[in-house]
């Protein structure tokens, strides 16, 4: 019952923010009539620029949140997120390389390159950490992630002037996201989010630890790669379109757990909505706070996320 209320409330909040986000921006605020006609026709500032951007924010937020929630159940570690275990860093290396090599030519192909980079690093983490305990698996991801970060920094420093575009990408921005990106993201998002909801029940016993889960008949050899695959698919999809928006995958699962408890069947849908809400909020605020300059959504998520995390620690409610 509480879950239904939260889902309804969050959906309403998301719808309201969606509308608000379409109405505001660097150019003058649009009146409701303009927003509506843009929404329906897909034309004008609202339809051609703001709508795809807002849709991207929503989809990406949901993907990051689901990725984090699945990773935290898989590793039974509340501090794990897609940024921590190397998935997004892998995409980052690929993005920086692509931007440095191809410059603005990289644009339309960038999502695919980044996706590939994330998946390759995620595959490496799996392969190196296979058969190890959960902690060692996480550490493998942390190590590879750190290596990727080092490579990114090295590239940025070495090619400083031409790396400005890569810098913006790395901060995770929704600037200039178009219908092309929505076209990539929407089907992917549908598949990944639906599959996650479908496996939610199967993944639940992991909450009690791997030993209890297997004594309940869970086949870990199937479930673990499935969860890893889904969370990587979610994070890689999101990173490929908007870059490394951090903190969403870490903080949102916590918020969702506080709201509706740890059962993934309730937790995942709430996390999806919260993630969408957080990224959209970050992007909207980032757009209107000092136009025509933009604060990247990724930066703003960290700004919003960090104090919340502090609050969680202070409340002592960080146990998974």
């Amino acid at each position, binding site marked *: 019952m509480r879950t239904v209320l939260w889902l309804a409330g969050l959906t309403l909040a998301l719808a309201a923010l969606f509308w608000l986000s379409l109405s505001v921006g660097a150019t003058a605020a649009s009146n409701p009539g303009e927003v509506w006609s843009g929404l329906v026709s897909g034309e004008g500032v609202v339809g051609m620029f703001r709508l795809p951007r807002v849709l991207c924010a929503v989809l990406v937020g949901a993907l990051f949140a689901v990725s984090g929630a699945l990773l935290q159940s898989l590793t039974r570690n509340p501090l794990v997120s897609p940024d921590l275990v190397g998935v997004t860093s892998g995409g980052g290396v690929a993005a920086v390389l692509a931007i440095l090599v191809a410059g603005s030519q990289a644009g339309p192909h960038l999502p695919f390159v980044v996706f590939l980079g994330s998946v390759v690093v995620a595959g490496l983490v799996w392969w190196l950490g296979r058969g190890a305990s959960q902690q060692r698996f996480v550490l493998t991801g942390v190590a590879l992630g750190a290596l990727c970060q080092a490579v990114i920094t090295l590239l940025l420093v070495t090619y400083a002037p031409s790396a400005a575009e890569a810098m913006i990408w790395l901060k995770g921005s929704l600037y200039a996201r178009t219908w092309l990106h929505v076209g990539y993201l929407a089907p992917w998002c549908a598949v990944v989010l639906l599959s996650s909801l*479908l496996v939610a*029940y*199967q993944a*639940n*016993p992991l*909450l*009690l*630890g791997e*030993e*209890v889960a*297997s*004594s*309940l*008949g*869970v*086949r870990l050899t199937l479930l673990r790669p499935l969860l890893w695959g889904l969370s990587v698919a979610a994070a890689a999809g999101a990173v490929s379109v908007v870059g490394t928006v951090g903190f969403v995958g870490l903080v949102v699962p916590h918020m969702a*757990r*506080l709201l509706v*408890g*740890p*059962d993934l*069947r309730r937790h995942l849908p709430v996390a999806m909505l919260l993630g969408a809400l957080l990224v959209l909020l970050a992007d909207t605020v980032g757009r209107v706070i000092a136009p025509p300059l933009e604060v990247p959504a990724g930066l703003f998520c960290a700004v919003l996320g960090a104090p919340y995390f502090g609050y969680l620690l202070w409340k002592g*409610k960080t*146990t*998974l």
Partner: protein
Amino acid sequence: MSLRAREICFSYTEGTPILRGLSVEIPRAKVTALIGRNGCGKSTLLKVLNRLLLPASGQVFLEERVLSDYPARELAQKMAHLTQSPIAPSGLTVRELVGFGRHPYLGFLGRKSSKDHEMVEWALEKTELTFLASRPLEALSGGQRQRAWIAMALAQDTEYLLLDEPTTYLDIAHQLEVLELLAQLNREEGKTVVMVVHEPNHASQYAHHVVGLSEGVVVMQGSPSEIFVKERMVELFGVEPLLFEGPEKERPWCVPYRVT
């Protein structure tokens, strides 16, 4: 004999074997206690019996079928395992925890039938937790929490119940309650109970069959009156006991007296 292990070898790290060719038979529909010093392999044996750990060599047979032949769900419908100090996530209610016991019976999306709900309520009733069912687990006392985990194992509706130190963290009244509950389940439902215990009297008063382990092999087994004698206690624990005859002649009381 329905659950038996044959020449099991197991080690967590190479070079330090925990189980060294251990063979044991667990009598059906009886309460069996595993006793022995720390690190003798009791918990490891329990995990091997439930396939939580795979032995390096040797085999476990459950009803004349090799354990590795069982599909995961089928095994979970036959055998429940309460591990040592399991941890639940915060926010989980008692009823939700007990509901996990139905996992091996549910379909892919986990919809519970009325039978599943009945089993959960039955398990809550048996463990006297019905009145606490909608409380979060962390709001319970240690004894209640342990009973909730036992309730989860009961909801699994298995013939075999494996329990690793089911009385840890419990005060003496709750210890006896848990043991009485297990004895009752054995008596009334015909469940086969295998438990690791440290307190000798828990074995002597509640088990039909006692298995003593030392350095990864079974060194003695038999009825409580065969095991709880002075020489055996000295051999197994290096402890000289005081032994008393209680109301039941074949169930001696055993007080550890001094280290030999």
